[in-house]
């Protein structure tokens, strides 16, 4: 089974699990636990899984990065859930949500 880290490794972008940098110098990404989830079939729980968030902070315009990460996370049906431009830091913050089942 492919992990989120495996999928993101092909992007060549800097990702770390839960590692947050108080004084970031460049672009960086963080992978973290979001929630337990379950797939329902009828009234029954068919499958349980784990939802992760994938944050990426970039000072580029973000278009290329967004395309690369979205493509990498496609096998886990990763979806871009949030984007915000931080005026005070100049970072564009993007967050994807992915779910791993089984």
């Amino acid at each position, binding site marked *: 089974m492919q992990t989120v880290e495996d999928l993101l490794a092909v992007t060549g972008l800097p990702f770390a699990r839960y590692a947050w940098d108080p004084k*970031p110098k460049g672009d960086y990404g963080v992978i973290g636990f*979001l929630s*337990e989830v379950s797939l329902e079939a009828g009234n029954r729980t068919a499958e349980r899984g784990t939802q992760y968030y994938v944050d990426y902070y970039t000072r580029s315009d973000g278009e290329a990065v967004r395309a690369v990460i979205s493509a990498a996370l496609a096998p886990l049906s990763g979806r871009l859930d*949030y984007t915000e431009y931080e005026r005070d*830091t100049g970072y564009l*913050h993007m967050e994807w949500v992915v779910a791993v089942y089984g």
Partner: protein
Amino acid sequence: MAKCTTDFSSLFREFDRMENSIVPICKMGVYDGAKILADAIKSACPTDTGSMKDSLGISRMVSSDGGVSTSIGFSGTDEKGVPNQLKARVFEFGRSTDNLKRPFVRPAVNRAKAAAQAAMAATIETEIQKTIGGK
């Protein structure tokens, strides 16, 4: 040749009655589901957020395009004048330079979603039965 006649007038009366009642019934159902979600979010709120927890509310029910919907959100400001909505967003999504990310809305919704859907269905079904039965 056999001839069969049926009086549909009572059935049409039920349809008329349902037509006038279905939107209010759906609003009751959506409210019951939203209340479960709001309670779940409230109980998952980070504790050190002052007034943010108390500012969570359910907005008015909106009926449009054949559906009924509402919103659950934070309102107002805390004692320092910081908008509660902004604080909730920082906790939910984080920022590049503050290690404050503690998602609580989406996990709470994931946990309570099935119960909310069941409550909506139960309320709507019960109210429809009352409407049809209450001739």
